[in-house]
């Protein structure tokens, strides 16, 4: 965990107003694990005041990639960075995915921009079979950048399966019978809630990357609580105890 100032190398606009920011940051590239995040100060003044959390989409050599859409003022400023501009990065933060336990098949479940951490994770899953289930409200919300074997769902049926990504996954579970499966998920809370139910019912091992409004990103503001399944008297913190949790251990 450190603060580094790293220059923008490239700004890539994918389709549907999704941006990829390539930043030359050897300090972060050499230390970050898939699922960990960065808290970024997008301006050098007090507007916006707080850092903004981003997961790392991918790492290539000494470069890191951030994936985002223009959602608010922070991401607007980030999208308008010029090559060579400094990015003020605090990271790596939080706990990433654990991909060292016993499984032979990885299932990626992501909704919308929830695909962001998976290109990087995929690099660590080279010896596994990977299936990906990617959802969005409509075809323009479906992102499949560097996603392996994607099966698509949309709420409005404009692309792929009509319904939620968790419904799509449930329909396909028979395909992975007799395999040692681990699910890696990231997406809106409604998706994670449904996925959690499915995983508990079918006894599936699943790690989910969660999200919450936060200020500091490293535990001092206490701004990002998440309910723990094991201890109802104490919240966990998304930034420090997560953002990746075993999905059975949190109540989303």
């Amino acid at each position, binding site marked *: 965990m450190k603060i580094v100032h790293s220059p923008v190398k490239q700004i890539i606009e994918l389709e549907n107003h999704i941006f990829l920011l390539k930043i030359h940051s050897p300090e972060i590239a050499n230390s970050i694990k898939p699922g960990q995040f960065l808290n970024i*100060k997008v301006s050098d003044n*007090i*507007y916006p005041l707080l850092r903004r959390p981003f997961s790392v989409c991918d790492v290539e050599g000494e470069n890191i990639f951030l994936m985002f859409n223009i959602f608010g003022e922070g991401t607007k400023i980030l999208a308008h960075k010029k090559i060579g501009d400094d990015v003020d990065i605090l990271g790596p933060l939080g706990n990433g995915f654990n991909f060292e336990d016993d499984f032979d098949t990885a299932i990626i479940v992501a909704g919308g921009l929830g695909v962001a951490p998976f290109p990087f994770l995929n690099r660590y899953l080279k010896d596994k079979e990977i299936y990906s289930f990617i959802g969005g409200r409509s075809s323009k919300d479906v992102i499949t950048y560097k996603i392996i074997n994607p099966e698509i769902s949309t709420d409005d049926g404009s692309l792929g399966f009509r319904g939620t990504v968790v419904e799509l996954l449930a329909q396909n579970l028979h395909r992975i019978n007799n395999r040692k499966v681990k699910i890696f998920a990231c997406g809106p809370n409604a998706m994670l809630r449904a996925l959690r139910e499915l995983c508990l019912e079918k006894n599936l091992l699943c790690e989910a990357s969660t999200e919450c409004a936060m200020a500091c990103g*490293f535990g001092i503001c*206490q701004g*990002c609580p998440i309910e723990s399944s094991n201890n109802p008297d*104490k919240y966990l913190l998304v930034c420090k105890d997560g953002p990746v949790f075993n999905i059975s251990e949190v109540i989303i």
Partner: protein
Amino acid sequence: MSSVDFKVEIGGLKLRSPILLASGTVGYGHEIAEFINMNSLGGIVTKSISLKPRKGNPPQRIVETPAGMLNAIGLANVGVEEFIKEKIPFLKKYDVPVICNIAASSVEEYVECTRLLDYEESIKAFEINVSCPNVKEGGLQFGNDLKSVGIVTNKVRAVTKKPLIIKLSPNVSNISDFAQIVKDEGGDAVSAINTLVGTAFNIFTRKPKIKNVNGGLSGPAIKPIALAKVFEIKRKVEIPIIGIGGIMDWKDVVEFMIAGASAIQLGTVNFINPIAADQIKKDLEEYCVSNKIQKISELTGSYILE
């Protein structure tokens, strides 16, 4: 070695630097210790401690607002017992004065907390958070009621000889009346200010952005208010003041000291720039050297009114 004398004194509390870290913005020191030199801080004010652990409020607890942020953490904390067992041993590893901030829902709880913690040698002073609902008075905040602030100060004073600081609420008409009662009831200093009550709505869902509806506003947005409050106290009451409210850099520190603060606390800035305390100290030294200020305490209340 710096040629500037950074030592300050606040109601009997001698500190090597006027730069303190504010309650609720650095937990119990674990995380911030990775970024700054704890051993050069003036002091660290702990997250509010209550008698029993508190879970705190459900999310969303935080939202950014123009030049500021609202928070409603709900005094989430580990409680006195775990604080003594788990947190104090960590803080003892450093040479940093610990100011223990106390929150409570009744006068008796303030007293009991202080009494239990008074034995801890590493706690050099108490800061009482009076911006808590008084359960026995129908949830009215202690800090908004002159009489309650007087009673809390008086009763806590009776159980500790350590410097007693009351952290004042800005959500009152005349903050100097509160500083006066703190002084009258035996308090040694005041911290000014705690957060201002604020809220924010989502214009699409029409729901409050913070689950608790109201939150405490902090950050640069509140600095002018905090300065006015510090200045008001300085002019009307003879009591040491610890200035708090939106300090982002050394210039803000100087401004607070000129307005009347003997020391300051860094709060929201820790979330954004966790190395702020070290940077500000270095910058302050440069300011003092180039302005021929030998003792930083000379700045306190050095305003000039035409």
